[in-house]
């Protein structure tokens, strides 16, 4: 990482500390091989088992390490810092990854899976169908992966042949993204952070474009996400360069030290910080840098949306926390004002634009923007309370979002999901359980007490008020009051308005989706009623400078 000489000094790799990361990335490579060598029939099953096993093992390792009280270490020549914060974030990420992977793997909601058909499966399906029509080139998938199947699977859906299996490449993608997230929120120098950022982004870009239904929408979202994402990471990178020029090193602690005692001009420092923050904020879909969020949330396959909404936010805010606390803690007073504005902008934008949405996934997207603003309140309080509050908020928000998106994916009409608000009219009469779960999660997003959303908001706001951010907190409260309106609108639709005769059907979820949704709802409830354990764990988290 730091050139030849110091590489050899870094021979001693603390494998214990890095085990989760290695497990995830290693299994990702293995699952690529699985893609290569396991025959089509077993592939999906093998991949699912492999992925889940990897995540579970990694989670166990994290928990063991967190409970065994091993001292925090900085590993790999100072590029990764495995401290209690990293462990908490890792635990959160892995815990969130499990339901996401379950949803991704589910093939009961959307026959054959929510993703583009696998070329081989497609070929077999065509043979089964007797190759009636010459293949028309539909949407070319990533790298010529024959997502031509999309159109075909859609067209031949009516016929007897079952739709072909989905791309199982999504599993390695998810694993790589997950590994990138793990590295991202534990990165101790900006270069590692940048590389991790890309490692987590690139698979996501691809995943967004792989929806089986609404190919064009999905591909558009992928293109937008990619272009804007690359744009943002360029900013991030330029910020890194400036900071490197300022401090002569990209190590966070070195930057802090240089900023603390240096007579150099601060223009480099703050310019670098600004650009850096732009990149990070983009990833976290904060405030003015959110433009990609609604489109991508809407266009991407819903399981992927869930994965992004939950895990990416966790990773991004983990990195934001680390940068703010470790690298720029000393100089907080100079730059905090600007970020106040950003936080307010984020909350207001998310709330106001959320009011105007009629597509549920877009609504969730805007609410995530608003929530990013709330989270930022916690990040801006450079205090232990702020840290723990933000961490807890991430955990709570992730599970709620996954549950919501899982439920959204269940409401389907003839062509894929019916995300329009009107589709939810009278859902309560048709399937009371789904309606109840969904309204519970929405109330959680609104921050009604006895849900995790409230506990999290309370933690963050109290931290913010404790650090003298009264204006922010007030704006936050008002915004959440306004935001409650568009959550309620859905509930009104579901409960109070009569069901449309030709309304969408609620497909009975298979075991995988059911498990993930249940997980999300239960955690949302638990964190609302007895959050003590999680709060304590979060409160114990400290950075290792």
């Amino acid at each position, binding site marked *: 990482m730091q050139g030849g000489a110091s590489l050899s000094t870094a021979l001693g790799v603390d494998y214990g500390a890095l085990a989760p990361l290695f497990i995830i990335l290693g299994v990702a490579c293995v699952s690529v091989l699985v893609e290569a060598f396991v025959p089509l029939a077993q592939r999906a099953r093998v991949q699912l088992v492999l992925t889940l096993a990897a995540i579970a093992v990694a989670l166990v390792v994290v928990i063991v390490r967190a409970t065994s009280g091993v001292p925090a270490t900085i590993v790999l020549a100072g590029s990764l810092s495995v401290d209690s914060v990293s462990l908490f974030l890792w635990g959160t990420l892995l815990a969130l990854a499990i339901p996401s992977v379950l949803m991704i793997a589910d093939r009961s909601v959307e026959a054959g899976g929510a993703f583009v058909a696998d*070329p*081989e499966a497609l*070929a*077999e399906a065509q043979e089964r169908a007797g190759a009636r029509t010459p*293949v*028309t*080139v539909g949407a070319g998938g990533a790298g*010529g992966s*024959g997502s*031509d199947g999309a159109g075909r699977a859609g067209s031949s859906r009516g016929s007897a042949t079952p739709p072909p299996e989905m791309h199982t490449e999504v599993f390695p993608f998810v694993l790589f993204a997950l590994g990138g997230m793990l590295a991202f929120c534990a990165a101790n120098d900006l270069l590692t952070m940048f590389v991790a950022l890309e490692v987590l982004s690139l698979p996501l870009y691809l995943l967004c474009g792989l929806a089986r239904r609404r190919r064009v929408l999905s591909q558009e979202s992928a293109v937008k996400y990619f272009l804007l994402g690359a744009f943002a990471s360029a900013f991030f990178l330029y910020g890194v360069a400036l900071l490197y020029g300022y401090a002569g090193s990209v190590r966070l602690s070195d930057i802090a030290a240089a900023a603390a005692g240096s007579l150099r001009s601060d223009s480099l420092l703050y310019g670098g910080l600004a650009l850096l923050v732009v990149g990070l904020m983009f990833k976290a879909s904060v405030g003015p840098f959110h433009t990609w969020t609604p489109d991508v949330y809407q266009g991407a396959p819903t399981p992927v949306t869930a994965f992004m909404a939950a895990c990416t936010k966790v990773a991004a805010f983990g990195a934001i926390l680390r940068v703010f606390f470790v690298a720029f803690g000393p100089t907080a007073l100079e730059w905090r004002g600007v970020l106040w504005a950003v936080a307010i902008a984020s909350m207001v934008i998310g709330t106001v634009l959320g009011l105007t949405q009629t597509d549920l996934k877009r609504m969730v997207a805007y609410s995530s923007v608003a929530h990013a603003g709330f989270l930022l309140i916690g990040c801006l309080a450079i205090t232990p309370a702020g840290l723990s509050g933000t961490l807890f908020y991430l955990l709570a928000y992730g599970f709620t979002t996954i549950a919501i998106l899982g439920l959204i994916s269940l409401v389907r009409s003839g062509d894929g999901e019916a995300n329009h608000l009107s589709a939810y009219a009278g859902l309560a009469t048709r399937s009371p359980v789904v309606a109840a779960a969904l309204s519970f999660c929405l109330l959680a997003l609104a921050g009604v007490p006895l849900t995790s959303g409230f506990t999290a908001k309370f933690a963050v706001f109290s931290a913010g008020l404790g650090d003298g951010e009264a204006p922010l907190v007030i704006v936050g409260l008002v915004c959440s009051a306004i935001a409650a309106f568009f959550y309620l609108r859905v509930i009104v639709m579901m409960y109070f308005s009569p069901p449309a005769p030709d309304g969408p059907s609620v497909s009975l979820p298979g075991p995988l989706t059911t498990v993930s949704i249940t997980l999300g709802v239960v955690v949302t409830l638990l964190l609302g009623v007895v959050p003590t354990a999680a709060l304590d764990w979060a409160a114990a988290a400290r950075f290792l400078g």
Partner: protein
Amino acid sequence: MNPLPPPNTPGYTQALLADDPLWLTIIKVVVVFALLLLMTLFMIWLERRVVGRMQQRPGPNWNGPFGLLQSLADGLKLAFKEDIRPTLADFPVFFIAPVISTIPAFVAFAVIPLGPEVSIFGHHTALQVADLPVGVLVAMACSSVGVYGIVLSGWASGSPYPLLGSLRSAAQVISYELALGLSIIGVVLYAGSLSTADIVAAQASGWYIWLLPVSFVVFAISMVGETNRAPFDLPEAESELVGGFHTEYSSLKFALFFLAEYVNMVTLSAVATTLFLGGWRAPWPLSLWAGANEGWFPIIWFISKMFVFLFVYIWLRGTLPRQRYDQFMRLGWKILIPVSLVWIVAVSALRVLRVQYGTVSAPVVLLIGFVVLVVAIVVAVLLPDRKPADEAPEEPTVVSDYPVPPLDLTVPPPPPRRRRSVPEAKETAAVGSGSPEKEDA
């Protein structure tokens, strides 16, 4: 500049050349340039003669002694042909493409060491235009910049054949550039430097062709692929693509492409000589005489070694039929690259072991395990491929939009033993005799 390090140590030549005055540099450049032009003319003549001899016919023997002036005459004739600009062509690019493909071919030769330290007009210098710390990379860079000229020419012609030809040549050049670069790595590993002069200096003890045979073979093969020469001359496969990327070119522009091709041949042969055949160092029996590596003699050794390669070029063209495109890509991607990867691992493993542990110890075994693993993976990859299903939907794309001849003529792949069967032997003759007409275009 910094004081001269002792001779035959890395960086010596750099320091030496750093003191060159400008006039000396210019002289060298002009000389090299002229040399390359002459080599081109001579090569065309030699090729036609040799191929003719291989085909039991005299070849050009009318203009000048042994027809030596034949290629000069061809060049002049080309100059007086009409310069056609197709209406559909994108003119600026069409205009600049030949230049782009010509320049790097010449520039690459600048890093080649032709000989040891000599004294020119009382000025001590090395027989080398420029010695750079990244000399080898410069050579490779030039060879890959050259492909831009080809791609742009094909694209700018606004015509299907050149487009496909240029695409092919781009694909082929980049594919074989990988093998090329990977094979060089072995040399760099042992020389410990990227400077050509240092590499030559490092071969004082022995040529790398003996030390790194695999690298040499890979390099030799991909050298041919890199220069679009038979049997890899698919970009200008007359039978499929008319003239390939220069279908629409005529007159001096065409001549420039031609020039570039032959200069590339010469340059790459020179690089090969430098990397594997000890550059200007005298071959074995002569090397016993100390004076062989002094003064101006080495140029002789160098050029003669270079001609070995050039002759092989011609020889291949005379003997081998043109490969089919899929066979060709398979050779590059499925054989050359994995082989050279494994080779690199093996070589560097041995190197590390020799440097660090005199003897074999436990970690060594583990290491061998790693290597074996990699090998095993590659072998596993070499399992008989399934019929890839995902290309099936693509084929209509190829033929879909506008009438181009299908890129890959779907010839049923012949079992390997029938390669050298009768009809293809005929094709050999056809190919061999195909080239002169191309010149007389």
